[in-house]
């Protein structure tokens, strides 16, 4: 299907697809930092698997982004040859891993949103989007189920595990709001029927989070301040260091074949 069939500003569409791809890429990177360092072998396996799913989704989203852009940039070129200001991921996914509890909480908060988004995207006016979303939704449904379960068990575990999970929730909370903030890029893809309005996902996310936190005996933070910027390319200081590692080989050996 030619992109031309859908009436949407191509630059906005490209930008929006980069947001999807970059979220997966950067979160996948963070999760992969745990390889071989997690608290128990089953988690080593699960985290490698999560990262793998996210990198697979990155390939699909950034691949489509390159196609929509139409300048011959592949998923690899987009992943490896843009600097931080061109990245469009939300700030949440670039937060440092912290302790294992923060890594799990970040994943849960993201997955709960990701699931709602992918569910809605399966009805996208662009069948290529709907197709990727359908594939990713299966993976993310599993992530979400696993993470909700872990958050509940650790929240309602020992004093220490509860305290760590509560702290994780508190420090990450101000990075969740950006998931639901709309800007001109969002409005363009919403108007074209490609994507749901970001704020339309909030009620379901709130419900999932509230239910899981209640069962986990954790309290939802009361602060209303929310960071933003990632979707527009204004990141935290962490992203530059992520990219320095991620892109080293492509930057240092231009023209290499890997």
């Amino acid at each position, binding site marked *: 299907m030619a992109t031309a069939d859908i009436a949407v500003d191509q630059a906005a569409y490209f930008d929006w697809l980069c947001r999807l791809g970059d979220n997966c890429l950067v979160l996948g990177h963070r999760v*992969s930092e745990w*390889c071989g360092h997690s608290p128990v072998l089953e*988690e080593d396996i699960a985290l490698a698997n999560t990262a793998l799913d996210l990198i697979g989704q990155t390939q699909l989203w950034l691949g489509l982004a390159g196609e929509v852009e139409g300048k011959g940039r592949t998923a690899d070129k987009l992943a490896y040859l843009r600097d931080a200001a061109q990245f469009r991921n939300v700030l949440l996914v670039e937060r440092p891993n912290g302790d294992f509890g923060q890594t799990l909480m970040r994943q849960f908060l993201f997955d709960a949103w990701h699931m709602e988004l992918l569910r809605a995207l399966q009805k996208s006016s662009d069948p290529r989007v709907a197709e990727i979303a359908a594939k990713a939704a299966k993976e993310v449904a599993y992530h979400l189920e696993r993470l909700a379960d872990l958050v*509940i068990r650790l929240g309602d575990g020992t004093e220490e595990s509860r305290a760590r999970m509560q702290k994780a929730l508190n420090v990450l909370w101000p990075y969740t709001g950006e998931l639901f903030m709309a800007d001109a890029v969002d409005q363009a893809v919403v108007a074209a029927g490609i994507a749901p309005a970001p704020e339309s996902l909030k009620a379901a996310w709130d419900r999932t989070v509230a239910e899981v936190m209640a069962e986990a005996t954790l309290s939802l933070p009361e602060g209303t301040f929310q960071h933003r910027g990632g979707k527009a390319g204004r990141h935290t200081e962490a992203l530059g260091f992520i990219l320095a590692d991620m892109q080293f080989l492509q930057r240092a050996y231009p023209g290499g074949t*890997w």
Partner: protein
Amino acid sequence: MSEQERVFQDRIDRGEKIEPKEWMPEGYRKTLIRQIGQHAHSEIVGQLPEGNWITRAPTLERKAILLAKVQDEAGHGLYLYSAAETLGVSRDELLALLHNGKMKYSSIFNYPTLNWADIGTVGWLVDGAAIMNQVQLQKTSYGPYSRAMIRICKEESFHQRQGYDILLKMCLQGTHEQKEMAQDALNRFWYPSLMMFGPSDKDSVHSAQSMQWKIKINTNDELRQKFVDQTVPQAEYLGLTIPDPNLKWNEAKGGYDFSEPDWNEFFDVINGNGPCNVERMEARVTAWEDGAWFREGLMAHAKKQDARRAAARVAAE
């Protein structure tokens, strides 16, 4: 040899598999625990040198393949700890022995991965040598171990091909610099890979009894020879030079003559003096200690749930 031991040895000689609940000599059990445990530890420590390049993998596809591989390795660790558990030792007990230095892991993982070609080379040579060891172990006499090996071998040969594929790309389609990386990697990993088969048969402590029990099928030297014979043409195809001036085809024996690795280095590294021994153990022990709260949290929750269920049952009665 007691009557019981003779019956046991007869079963092995007939090619029967020994199963968990059956009688076995203490030495057989101990040797198996040592061997399976060490193998399991190798899988989990082995995540570290390869994990070292996941965040820097040069393409998304290579990153995905490497993630899948490291995931498989952790999975192998899981099968192997389970196989060891059938012999009456828990995973936590084995890990405690690893962490306090009383059990070893394969010394190859004490070498660093220094450039991307190392990831290819680890797949090609290290997994290659591991498979050579493991293929024979599919026929090992202990049932659960044999079955774990069958499963593992399948995945490992996949990994080996993927590793070799990295080098094919770098050596046959890559730049001059990339080929240099590959040669550098081969230079560093060649002898450590030969060491993976253990010392020469004449210096190997446990070999004879292990072979009688079919815990081991081939000798170290047989396997090493097979490995060299398989690997040399592969290196030639890549256009790489094996770092051994004495390497030469020997028509008479139908295999290559080659230099022995430096066995002093081998024992040195086993005894803690390798490039990365300290880092590897530190990484594993830190992961374990930092994760204590996580494991305890999950256990506490499980207990609470049990108590709740019990209380619900009482209330319902």
